[in-house]
């Protein structure tokens, strides 16, 4: 009935390894945990998607919404789609991929902290925005949360900041869990010291095989992006948490305030890497899945190990590319940061460029298995290239004067977040859900409708936004100047197609859950409460 099952791992790939918990138990618990994250994050996508649609419908003057409500929706949509859907999904799927390359979870405490603090944080964000009217945008650029022009109180700001802090705690717990899982006995270091383990986890075994030996052969490539992301997000979330704590203190009315430029830097020292909280796990998942469909191991040598060391370091030193336009007179430090961070951002192109090369070489003339899952993945990879080119443009300060805070930026990050990571997420659902649920997809053909509706709908929509941006359409305007209305209407047509495609997907998923027969009896008990 279906061809979406994963082909067997290529020869040479490592089987599931032993661990501190009995194999079957870890497998079952991981399966349940990952499924829970998938269902929860998908529910967040439904909410965030509807909110996004409302935003665009208002811009197209199809519906009307109160001004502050529009911006409250925008705030909830940004955090919801980015963190609560894409970020959360990828955080969950991480543990499935890691297990499959021989790095099973060693404890479920941190993943549970990750799960519940994210859920609570998202609830807080939804309540403070949609009900209490917090509308500072998902970056809530300081000092805006405290200048609401009468639309929300400082207390609401405090609760909102606390909710975001909970999402931050979720990310910290995730990072700790990933490091605990990867810098682990599973590396099978010949000399099992902490130093050897750390070096092996970050790819030194690939670079200097004689100094960093293991008994398990090459380190599986997916481990690299996961581990790199965990370190970077750990380091990046701390300054952001500090900013949130400052804001919570200020919200209690202690007559306390922060320097605006400093706040901007703290925000983006987190705000940049958080983008890679999506990209790096996505890269790791491609590294895992593409070789499965191509029937050979990832074509990657030392270059890829070097690329991830560049990513590890540079990711933390590019934040000022979000502040290129902040160059107040006499603030030489801020200006120099801009000058330095254009080249560091360019350097950060390398991990993407080399990954794309490796993936392309893996697919090249392979016996590639084309099915819905692998088509979604390939479409996501092409978007990685396309949106990556936009990224180079955005990294160029001289171009920012034309692009900053226009709809081009909004088009760009949807091209990256939705059409790269989003398509990967759908691909991963097609690929992994059969083994997670223990049953095949109900209907493969519906998957093709989903694929093409999503690609055409989403590319049509983001292209409209990018053109509007190049024509100077400002970002975050509830009502755009009239000159942009036509393209907004065109994009609404594409969005209708996009929504229809997601309905097809929802129907297919629903029917799979209800009607598709189990082909893996061990999954029956796993599915437990998800049965309709």
């Amino acid at each position, binding site marked *: 009935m279906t061809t979406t099952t994963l082909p067997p791992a290529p020869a040479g790939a490592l089987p599931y390894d032993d661990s501190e918990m009995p194999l079957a138990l870890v497998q079952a618990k991981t399966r349940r945990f990952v499924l829970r994250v998938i269902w929860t994050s998908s529910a967040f996508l439904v909410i965030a998607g509807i909110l996004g649609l409302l935003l665009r419908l208002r811009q197209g003057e199809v519906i009307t919404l109160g*001004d502050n409500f529009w*911006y409250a929706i925008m705030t909830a949509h940004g955090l919801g789609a980015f963190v609560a859907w894409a970020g959360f999904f990828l955080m969950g799927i991480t543990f499935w991929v890691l297990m499959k390359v021989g790095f099973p979870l060693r404890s479920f405490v941190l993943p549970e902290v990750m799960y519940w603090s994210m859920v609570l944080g998202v609830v807080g964000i939804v309540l403070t925005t949609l009900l209490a009217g917090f*509308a500072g945008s998902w970056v809530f*650029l300081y*000092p*805006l949360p405290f*200048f*609401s*022009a009468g639309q929300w109180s400082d207390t609401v700001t405090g609760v909102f900041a606390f909710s975001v802090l909970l999402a931050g705690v979720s990310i910290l717990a995730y990072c700790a869990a990933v490091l605990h899982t990867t810098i682990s006995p599973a590396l099978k270091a010949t000399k099992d010291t902490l130093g050897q383990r750390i070096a092996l986890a970050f790819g030194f075994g690939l670079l200097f095989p004689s100094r960093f030996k293991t008994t398990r052969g090459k380190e599986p490539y997916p481990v690299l992006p996961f581990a790199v992301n965990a370190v970077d997000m750990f380091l990046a979330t701390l300054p952001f948490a500090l900013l949130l704590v400052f804001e919570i203190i200020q919200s209690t009315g202690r007559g306390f305030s922060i*320097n605006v430029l400093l706040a*901007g830097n703290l925000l983006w020292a987190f705000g940049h890497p958080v983008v890679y909280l999506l990209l790096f796990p996505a890269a790791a998942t491609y590294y895992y899945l593409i070789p499965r469909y191509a029937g*050979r191991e990832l*074509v990657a*040598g030392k270059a890829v190990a070097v690329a991830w060391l560049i990513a590890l370091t540079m990711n933390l030193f590019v934040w000022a590319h979000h502040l*290129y*336009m*902040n*160059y*107040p*007179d006499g*603030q030489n430090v801020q*200006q120099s940061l*801009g*000058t330095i961070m*254009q080249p560091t951002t*360019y350097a950060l*192109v390398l991990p993407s*460029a*080399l990954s794309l*090369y490796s993936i*392309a*070489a893996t*697919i*090249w*003339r*392979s*016996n590639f298995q084309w099915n819905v899952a692998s088509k979604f993945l390939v479409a996501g*990879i*092409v978007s990685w*290239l*396309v949106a990556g*080119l*936009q990224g180079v*443009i955005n990294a*160029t*300060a*001289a*171009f*920012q*004067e*034309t692009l900053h*805070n226009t709809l081009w930026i909004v088009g760009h990050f949807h091209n990256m977040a939705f059409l790269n990571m989003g398509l990967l997420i759908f691909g991963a659902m097609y690929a992994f859900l059969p083994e997670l649920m223990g049953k095949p997809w109900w209907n493969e053909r519906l998957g093709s409708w989903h694929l093409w509706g999503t690609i055409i709908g989403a590319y049509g929509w983001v292209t409209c936004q990018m053109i509007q941006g*190049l*024509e*100077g359409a*400002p970002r*975050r305007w*509830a*009502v755009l100047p009239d*000159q942009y209305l036509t393209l907004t209407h065109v994009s609404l047509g594409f969005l209708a197609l996009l929504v229809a495609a997601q309905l097809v997907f929802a129907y297919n998923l629903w029917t799979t859950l209800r009607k598709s027969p189990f082909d893996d009896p061990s999954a029956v008990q796993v599915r437990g409460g998800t049965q309709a």
Partner: protein
Amino acid sequence: MMTSLGRGIATGYLIFVALGLIIAFGVLWSTKAGRRDKGQGVDIERAERAEPWWGVFVVVLLAILLGLTIWRAPWFSEDDSPKDVQVKVTGMQFGFLVQPTTVRVGQHVEFNVASKDVNHAMGLYNPEGQMIMNVEAVPGYTTSRSYLFTEPGSYTIRCLEFCGYQHHKMIYPAFQVTA
């Protein structure tokens, strides 16, 4: 309507997208039944050895782009030469104070952009509706940016940094440039 810089960006972007798509489709095409590797054709080790050279190639391309563009970063583009007029633009929730409100064609104008409350930005649109300038207004600081006006008419200033629930109404409709 796009500015000439906007058109340049779009053109360069489309060229690279086209090249990228051609390569991508070539790779996908190579998995068709007739073209597949039957176990002798593809030299994986060679592909691995070539990967660093691809990296070098990308670095060279980016270095060229860096050399061409970094000098045009807005903070390098300002010179110290005396300007003909200073125009003070102060943002506040939700409007702009502009002084003076009229300049003449041919004048080299320095805008001093500031804010009274939150972050705003001065997006300057020419009579054709093209955005020709985009300067952040950071509370507590002044940012200076100059422009040589060559075209008379009525210019619009729009706020380009999200500043609250009336952000989209933060418009200064008529900054006059007289002939």
